[in-house]
């Protein structure tokens, strides 16, 4: 989870390109870009649990969906505008994530995965069934203010929130809190021997992750102008897992790269391939089988190996992983 000066520079360049992209590309690509940005926030915040705390959650679609429902329900029942909904989405999603985390962190491994899946399905069921409050399977529309109907305006809103969210996650990863999570992931027993409250850290990571997933969901719901129960269905929970794994869970920007690859792939496969699931499934299979460390992890290893080969005698670079 270490961030190097180089990757930070790369991040700045990517953000700059994104800032000017409304001038470079047309509206259709902006829409795809927004889906990519939202997926990046979702996958990066998800990875705080998987790569950060070493816990496999298989129920993050619930927090993503709760974010979208926060915007929609506040609008439908209290008449609050979209931006207020987006601002409150991390609180609502975070509270649910906290409750689930408190109940689940006592388990580990695949049992933890199963329990997060079960709770997510429970939340899904309530939302899909509670007609009078949520509109049931019909979903609820989200009204977007006129200003944000202009694609570029909504793009900048999305970009600002996603970059802010990713920076926040980066700061968390590099804080003492992140260091403690790292220690717990590497060796939970040793971490508890040196006095770390392992469960507390895991609960905190899960809550933050859920909260920011909620923000991603709020942005997605507002972009597509609706909240639907299918956003919370268990198969959707596989998405951030796949993205994080494809990009690499031990590199901070791995999930972001995975999110970009999968979102674009998903989009084009749905547009042009006759059998989208087949194509998508084969790509996942190949990525997982061939690139165990994900795209970013493999690329970084390749870089390090090349540099090591080039300067075998030289002392280790300060950029190298500890």
């Amino acid at each position, binding site marked *: 989870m270490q961030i190097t000066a180089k990757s930070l520079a790369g991040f700045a360049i990517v953000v700059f390109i994104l800032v000017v992209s409304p001038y470079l*590309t*047309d509206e259709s690509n*902006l*829409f795809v870009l927004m889906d990519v940005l939202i997926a990046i926030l979702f996958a990066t915040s998800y990875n705080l649990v998987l790569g950060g705390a070493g816990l496999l959650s298989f129920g993050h679609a619930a927090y993503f969906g709760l974010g979208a429902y926060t915007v929609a329900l506040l609008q439908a029942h209290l008449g609050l505008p979209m931006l207020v909904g987006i601002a409150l989405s991390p609180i609502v999603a975070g509270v649910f994530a906290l409750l689930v985390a408190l109940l689940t962190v006592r388990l580990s491994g695949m049992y933890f995965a199963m329990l997060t899946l079960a709770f997510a399905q429970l939340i899904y069921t309530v939302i899909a069934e509670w007609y009078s409050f949520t509109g049931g399977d019909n*979903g609820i529309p989200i009204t977007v203010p006129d200003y944000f*109907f*202009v694609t570029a305006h909504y793009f900048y809103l999305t970009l600002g929130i996603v970059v802010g969210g990713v920076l926040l996650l980066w700061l968390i990863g590099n804080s003492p809190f992140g260091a403690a999570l790292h220690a717990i992931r590497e060796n939970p027993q040793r971490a508890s021997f040196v006095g770390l409250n392992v469960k507390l850290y895991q609960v905190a990571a899960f809550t933050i992750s859920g909260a920011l997933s909620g923000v991603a969901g709020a942005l997605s719901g507002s972009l597509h102008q609706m909240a639907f129960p299918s956003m919370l269905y268990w198969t959707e929970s596989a998405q951030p897992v796949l993205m994080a794994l494809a990009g690499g869970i031990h590199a901070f920007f791995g999930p972001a790269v995975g999110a970009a690859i999968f979102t674009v792939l998903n*989009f084009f496969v*749905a547009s042009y391939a006759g059998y989208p699931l087949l194509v998508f499934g084969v790509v996942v299979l190949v990525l997982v089988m061939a690139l165990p460390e994900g795209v970013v992890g493999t690329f970084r290893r390749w870089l390090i190996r090349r540099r090591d080969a080039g300067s075998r005698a030289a002392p280790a670079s300060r950029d190298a992983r500890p």
Partner: protein
Amino acid sequence: MSGLPITRRTMALATSAAIATALASAPGKALAEGAPIKIGLTTDLTGIAATYAAAQVNAVKLAIEEINAAGGIKGRKLELLVRDSQLKPALGASLTRDLIVREKIDYLIGPDASSVGVAVSGVAKQYKKVVVMTIPNTPRLVGELFHKYFFTIVPSGTMLARAMAEGIGKTNNSIAFIGGDYEASHQAIQYFGEWLTKVNPKAKITAQQWPKLGEPDFTPYITQLISAKPDIVFSYLWGADLIAFIKQAKPYGLFDKTKFATLLFLDDLKALGDDMPDGIIGQMYAPPFGTNSPAMAEFIKKYQAKFNSFPSDWAVMGYDGMRILADGIRNAASMESDAVAEAIEKLKFDGLQGPLTFRAVDHQGNVPSFLGTTGKVAGLPFKGLVDIQRIPAESVWPTPEEILAQRKDK
């Protein structure tokens, strides 16, 4: 979306990019004359409703082929672009928007699931694109979500529920209901109940059963329905659920003990084959055997020859929907959405099921629905409906006042 996005106004800031953009979008204008008219079709080719979508795509393709073979419209060929929304409303919205913004399609033809229909209708409204719907039928589409570019040739949920009440309400006093636990069937029983009090004030809905969609085991519901001892069971199950229900109810003798009336798709008849019991009252949208006309016979022949399968309700509506859109484009003063919408509104269309027009208040086509009894039909490789009763739209559709009231409530 009002006006152009910011990109266009500030393009001068990045000259090279502007040139690239201009080049990329140049074909749209320069080749407009003689270039194909692009039709966008977002539908659910993946998931449980895939079989309906497949028939829809086939039929739309067939119609386009015929139109193109006859020289196209105003000297231009039609080109179809299909996208797979996979039963996900958000994906449906994304793909439809992409068809409009990137592929520059000119008109839309309807999706599959009602939830995706709602999403597609929203995008069509935002970008002012004419959309003709041929499968979705939630009453919200003609109600609070209505806009002037929207047209439908599907009997709405309201119309079907009322038609069912007309068909079975007069002669049965105790009615038990079973329907999948989702919005459409909750609406169905509500509209059915309201109409029932009009046609037969003595009739009562004595039991309601709500299995979840995709329920594998209907036995508990079947035994409950049997012990309710109704005059008739009204079912809003369809597709895979209806098949499972019928197969499980048969050995319990449900169909010997009580009459059974259900929503029914041609796909269900096809799948069940000889396992379909005789004597069930089926309500169908647009079965090819429901209309006895040379045009329908010709369509069945062409469809079977091309796709090697019997056309379903969705094929009938998809074929007519595409031809309606084509007639609208042909009759319109210009290619603009407003002109085409106006032309479709005035259209007197000669459809497979007879003449068809749209009314102004909700752009609902005056399409019939059908009630009949299951049984062997000559010339069909599976069972069909006999003693078919054609229920005209005019007898069951909501009055304009009702539609306006529905919109005001929301």
